[in-house]
């Protein structure tokens, strides 16, 4: 019996293949976008984890020191002789052949064994690694960018993260000039039971717990939260499709359900069969979705990798591996989504009497009630959003605001539209317009989900678009200020830098040293720059707060400028005193914006910088040159001085590169935006298609009264476009609110900088046109069906015989 019933139930799809396609597409799209984003996220996270475990053996405990200089080698001997199994690491950033890479010097003899990334496979590897000149182990990508490896033999290993390399500790000691001082120790997991406490051996050392997230993962969390939010948005939009498709198929099969029940199929077994059917469909659609998600992810991942690299300096492998966890998660999401989307239909089935059919209006009356509930709920959510902006605190709250704002606006939308349509209906005098408005209002409950999806997509587009454009405009303005020098040169060695310092002054207007050291300030790593007292800075530097005498105070060596992210993160105030490494305390005298930089920055006077950090690399210089002299100076630097061409970068190139990085950074956002809009358009399409069948009885009386099919079709088009347009107009304020939240709250929490909100109405027009196009596309096929409907089909509405 079950089999017969099941076949009867699924026979529906043979007659309505389009509905089947719609349903499967809906679930598949929802799953695809969700799992695509998840794939990107999990790949990136796996990358960090791999990088962390490879680079730092982060799963193991570490011994670290507060001492800037490192840990003396004698401490190592004491620890080992006391029985502590610790392995030394000397690490740092080094410039090799014009490229900065993270150099990790390890001791393969004592390094705890790691299964995922064996540094040396066997004893001959070991001997080669240790024996001078030594081996440098890195990925092929990194190796391809290096022109000079100081005589080290390059060995390739795909498990080494990009822009990092492993060398023997002796090589790192030599290249980083550490004089034997150790950066940190890795503590092997298998220690003897009775060891003397570390503090007794060396009080300067402290144990850092293993397994905790690295800096990079906490930094990039916000970015991933961003992506996840987008993925979820797309998932919700996809669910709307599935929801409406399931609703339609259920309502169209009511007759079948009634017949089956009157033939003695129990409600329970009917429900079970339907759930089975939906589960099978969800699994099929989910599998398709995961596969599509994989494709999406593999297209987007390089962009994401570029973003993460550009924004946070986090290295992510640009290739995707198929992971069982998101494959399963994708299917689970498909099942969950289908369950959510079908819950209402199943519930209706349970409440459906065996006889009697529901009429459009009575459904509409129920819908009107739920419209009011929705509107109240939406209003509450919007109020919550406003309330949360007052509270503030943390990225999660920021995303809470976003969610409340979007969901609230979406819930309010049908009520707003219904109210507007009601006004229009009352205002209309002629019968056709009046019918048009009234009928549109009647369609609203059926269309409202698709419209809500559309609102979400459009608002996200406007919001994110406004955010990106505001950011871009601000960023480019900032670049102009920040990159004031016409040429930037980098010496290869200190000796060359010294010659450069002597050579340059007679040939350029001004030489601006760009010298920096890395150090911990307020417990976090920051870059400390020394700046010359020069008009270039006074006139151009993008200072946000600070008095007129900022530069005088900097020049005096007593003041410091900090970047915005450090200022916000540490809650600094102008006038606060901060301690820099090397017993150097300065007053914060101002704040400047510093986009695209994950770490804090402190600017101090060049004189003071030189005094406190005499060993800082003095390799980089900004040069002020007359524009007309630019080419002459450059060729002189190359031909007369002998600097390689790639050591000289001009302002225009730098700006171009920065812009390219910026645009690439937000390419992913753009792609997700477009995808979300496409999904929303599909939601509308499938809804209209589903409604088209039920439209005939509503349109036939008009036709019988002498309204032409063509006119009816035209009205259908106008209706869709009108609804899209209304939704689009609602989406503008919602989108702007979204942009404001992104710029003023999310950005501050995620990146540490606040951006001014700028309005780009031209973009709205483009979006409006895109939306109009999508509306026309989505309505085209259903309306064409309608305008071509045979009179016989319309007649069938009125009669059961011929």
């Amino acid at each position, binding site marked *: 019996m079950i089999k017969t019933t099941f076949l009867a139930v699924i026979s529906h799809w043979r007659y309505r293949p389009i509905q089947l396609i719609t349903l499967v597409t809906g679930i598949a799209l929802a799953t695809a976008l969700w799992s695509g984003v998840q794939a990107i996220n999990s790949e990136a996270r796996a990358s960090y984890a791999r990088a962390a475990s490879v680079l730092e053996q982060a799963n193991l405990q570490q011994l670290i020191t507060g001492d800037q200089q490192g840990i003396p*080698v*004698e401490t*190592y*001997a*004491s620890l*080992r*002789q*006391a*029985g502590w*199994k610790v392995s030394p690491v*000397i690490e740092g950033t080094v410039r090799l052949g014009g490229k900065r890479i993270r150099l990790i*010097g390890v*001791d393969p*003899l*004592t390094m705890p064994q790691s299964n995922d990334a064996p540094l040396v*496979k*066997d*004893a*001959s590897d*070991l*001997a080669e690694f*240790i*024996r*001078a000149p030594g081996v440098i182990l890195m990925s092929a990508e990194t190796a391809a960018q290096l022109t000079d490896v100081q005589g080290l033999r390059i060995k390739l290993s795909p498990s080494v993260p990009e822009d990092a390399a492993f060398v*023997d*500790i*002796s090589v790192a*000691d*030599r290249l980083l000039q550490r004089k*034997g001082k150790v950066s940190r120790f890795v503590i092997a997991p*298998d220690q*003897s039971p009775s060891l003397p406490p570390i503090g007794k051996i060396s009080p300067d050392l402290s144990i850092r717990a293993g397994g905790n997230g690295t800096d990079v993962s906490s930094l990039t969390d916000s970015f991933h939260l961003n992506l996840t939010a987008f993925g979820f948005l797309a998932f919700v939009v996809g669910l709307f499709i599935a929801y409406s498709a399931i609703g339609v198929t259920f309502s169209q099969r009511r007759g079948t359900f009634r017949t089956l029940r009157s033939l003695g199929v129990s409600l329970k077994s009917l429900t079970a069969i339907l759930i089975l059917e939906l589960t099978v469909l969800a699994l099929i659609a989910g599998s398709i979705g995961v596969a599509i998600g994989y494709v999406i992810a593999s297209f987007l991942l390089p962009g994401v990798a570029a973003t993460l690299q550009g924004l946070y300096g986090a290295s992510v492998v640009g290739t995707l591996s198929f992971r069982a966890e998101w494959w399963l998660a994708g299917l689970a999401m498909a099942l969950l989504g289908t369950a959510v989307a079908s819950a209402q239909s199943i519930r209706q089935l349970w409440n459906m009497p065996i006889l009697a059919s529901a009429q459009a209006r009575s459904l509409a009356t129920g819908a009107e009630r739920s419209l009011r509930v929705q509107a109240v709920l939406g209003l509450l959510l919007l109020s919550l959003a406003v309330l949360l902006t007052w509270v503030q605190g943390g990225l999660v709250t920021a995303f809470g605001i976003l969610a409340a704002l979007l969901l609230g606006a979406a819930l309010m939308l049908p009520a707003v539209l219904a109210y507007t349509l009601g006004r229009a209906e009352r205002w209309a005098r002629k019968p056709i317009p009046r019918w048009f408005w009234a009928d549109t209002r009647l369609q609203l409950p059926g269309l409202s989900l698709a419209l809500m999806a559309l609102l979400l997509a459009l608002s996200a587009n406007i919001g994110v678009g406004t955010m990106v454009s505001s950011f871009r405009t601000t960023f480019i303005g900032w670049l102009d200020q920040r990159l004031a020098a016409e040429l930037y040169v980098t010496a290869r060695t200190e000796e060359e830098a010294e010659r450069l310092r002597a050579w340059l002054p007679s040939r350029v207007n001004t030489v601006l040293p760009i010298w920096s050291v890395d150090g911990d300030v307020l417990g976090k790593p920051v870059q400390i720059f020394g700046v010359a007292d020069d008009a270039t800075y006074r006139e151009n530097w993008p200072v946000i707060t600070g008095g007129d005498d900022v530069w005088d105070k900097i020049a005096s060596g007593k003041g410091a400028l900090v970047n915005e992210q450090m200022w916000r993160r540490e809650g600094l105030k102008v006038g606060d005193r901060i301690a820099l490494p090397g017993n150097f305390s300065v007053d914060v005298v101002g704040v400047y914006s510093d986009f695209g930089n994950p770490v804090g920055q402190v600017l101090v006077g060049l004189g003071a910088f030189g005094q406190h950090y005499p060993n800082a690399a003095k390799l980089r210089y900004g040069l002020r040159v007359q524009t007309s002299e630019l080419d002459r100076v450059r060729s002189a630097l190359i031909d007369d001085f002998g600097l390689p061409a790639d050591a000289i970068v001009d302002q225009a190139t730098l700006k171009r590169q920065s812009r390219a990085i910026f645009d690439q950074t937000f390419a992913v956002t753009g792609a997700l935006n477009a995808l979300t809009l496409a999904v929303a358009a599909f939601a509308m399409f499938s809804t209209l298609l589903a409604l088209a069948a039920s439209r005939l009885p509503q349109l036939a009386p008009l036709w019988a009264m002498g309204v032409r099919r063509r006119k009816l079709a035209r009205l259908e088009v106008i209706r869709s476009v009108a609804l899209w347009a209304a939704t689009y107009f609602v989406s503008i304020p919602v989108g702007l609110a979204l942009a404001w939240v992104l710029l003023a709250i999310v950005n501050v929490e995620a990146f540490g900088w606040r951006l001014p909100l700028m309005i780009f109405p031209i973009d709205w027009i483009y979006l409006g046109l895109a939306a109009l196009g999508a509306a026309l596309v989505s309505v085209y096929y259903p309306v064409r069906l309608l305008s071509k409907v045979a009179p016989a089909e319309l007649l069938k509405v009125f009669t059961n015989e011929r």
Partner: protein
Amino acid sequence: MSANRLGLAVILFLCASHLEGHAQGFAGLGTTAEGFSVPRKGVPLEFPRDHGAHPDYRIEWWYVTANLKDASGQDYGAQWTLFRSALSPQTVQGWSDPQIWLGHAAVTTKNQHYFGERLARGGVGQAGVTLQPFRAWVDEWGMQGTGAPDADPLQNLKVKAQADLFSYDLSLSAKGPLVRQGDRGYSVKSANGQASFYYSQPYYTVEGEIVLEGKPVTVTGKAWMDREWSSQPLAADQTGWDWFSLHLASGEKLMAFRLRDSGNGYSSANWVSVNGESTSLSGDEVIIEPKQTTKVGDRTIPTVWRVRIPSKSLDVVTHPLNSRSWMGTTTPYWEGPITFEGSTSGEGYLEMTGY
């Protein structure tokens, strides 16, 4: 005992840890050592200087094996070894020191064989050998001179090691003189003339404590130390070795080894009298034959041997305390205490590599 351990130490660093046939490693040794000093005949050993490291030679070790008994008469074996292997013939302070150090320690009982291994680089204090006072160490493992300042530094020693399931702390006291092996310390390892510097202290008495899986045992017994260094000790076709150090009931000592190769092999022995007089015995005077094998993992290892030296009327059969005295270290080998019976009886140590 020379060739065996020389080869072992070098293989540890130059060959794959999973290398089964050692021919490759030997081929590496057969080449002339660039820059390394080579042992020459007639150069006299000098103490205490030669107790210390010789960084200009490629390889070197301080090797102690002890046959021990507890109060109830149970037998134990203990091993403490520090190998030195130079990547180049020099030593420098700091991380770039080319001297690599390797510690092996083991305790053998009738049923168990415990071992541990430590690797270290020189130049940073993690491992090394000092003379005044004498100390050889890697991590917390150590062999330290405890005698009077004017006595030979190796006269009295404290030897310590620990690993996952065992530790020991032994006091060694020499009851006889140092013994120069071969020709006054110049020990030939092949017919082609490969050789090493080699001396021993076979007269130690031992007392101390072994802790096995948390349970301390007080032990006493005999120990034997080997000191050897070289740069070019083996012939190209030699595949492994079987080496014996025997404490005879008479108080005499015998060191004998057999180097296996594609032909008949190369055997050699040294007979040491009760008062330390050493007699070098040539290959045809020493007959070493496997009698019985044991499967250890997938390897077949001869663990019962017959050793004959007709000129000394010696004909004994050796039995291991534990036939599974397998050192599963970076380069694995068999090393454990043995007893022997026949024309005389006694105890000693057996080491076998290349199986």
